[in-house]
């Protein structure tokens, strides 16, 4: 398992080994959805906000 830093809350995000660029993971601390932009070492960016399906 590798780790990377969450850009939202700064905590360490545990990642699986066969990571691929473009994958979306969430931060286990703040829940932010993060995009893998590099793999060795892994770098995460905030993923484009998905539209909420909460309606209004």
């Amino acid at each position: 398992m590798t780790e990377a830093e969450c850009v939202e809350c700064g905590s360490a995000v545990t990642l699986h080994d066969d990571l691929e660029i473009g994958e979306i993971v969430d931060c286990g601390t703040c829940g932010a959805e993060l995009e893998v932009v590099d793999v060795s070492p892994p770098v995460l960016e905030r993923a484009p906000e998905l539209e909420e399906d909460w309606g209004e």
Partner: protein
Amino acid sequence: MTTSAEDEGTGEGFTAAVVGGSGFTGGELLRLLVGHPAFEVVQATSREYENKTVGYVHPNLRGLNLRFSSPEELESVDVLFAATPHGVSMQHIDSFRDAAGLVVDLSADFRLPEADAYDEWYDGHTATEHLADAEYALPELNRGNLPGAELIAAGGCNATATLLAMKPLVDAGVVTGDDRVVVDVKVGSSEGGASGGKASSHPERSGVVRPYAPTGHRHEAELEAYLDLPTAFTVHAVEMVRGASATCHAFPDGPVTKGDLWGAYREAYEDEPFVDLVAGGGGTYRYPEPKAVAGTNRAEVGFALDPGNERVVAFGAIDNMMKGSAGQAVHAANVALGLEETAGLDQLGLHPVGSP
């Protein structure tokens, strides 16, 4: 049930169409118009349920002899009500206005007076030439401009609850645009419309107190536009289907008494046919509650004074499907057409009632 769409017509009546008739507020419009003495419903559109009876979707309208038809083929009517998602009306506004002398739109597409505001709060506006014609529906704010209007925009439900609660304080000068007001709104699941989604499935949505718009809710735009009031707005989803309840925390500059407040609210609403003041008193129902007005076009408005914190708490409770959309739309149409204001809107609430 023997109610029939055709029965309703009378010599002095108006024909009506509901675009988006299979949705929640569209169904509510149909309920109101079917029971309205001056309207005859001649069309209700749905793409998904084309050719199905209205009762297939809305079990309370099983007695209505009407089938959904396509929004592509609009009938000529006196009044067209549009109950479609944001963006649809601005796209079709020309054909809507071709089809009807009066268009009443329930979406946000024509609510804000300035095109700029659509850039800031929404995804811009593609039919800005109609904005100048549009009148905000809420009669308590804009009654004078409704008669003869050709395009009416029903207010947002959360904005309506807030506007009704705060307007007397603004009009009476108790609160000014310099004071920040905190508005904490609680809403029911019908606000999300009929299209569903995972977060609004019954197991996930039941029993929540869920901050669904902690900040940045678009209705702030209406409050700025119509009340000239900067609001810190937060909306929570709570366990009910119908209802919107605004709790507004305001901090007047100077001292204010209960008498001042009663004066302000009575001044504002004494003659309003759809606003009840509920502020303290005894019994179980002492402040505005949405369940007491569910299914009706009524608004309960009230306040409490918190001298220790130099605070006024103002409350507004409505049914989002009625005073917050379909009822407000019919009320505004009544005013626009010179009908009795309360025509078709005399439903009384229920007591007791659960979580309507």
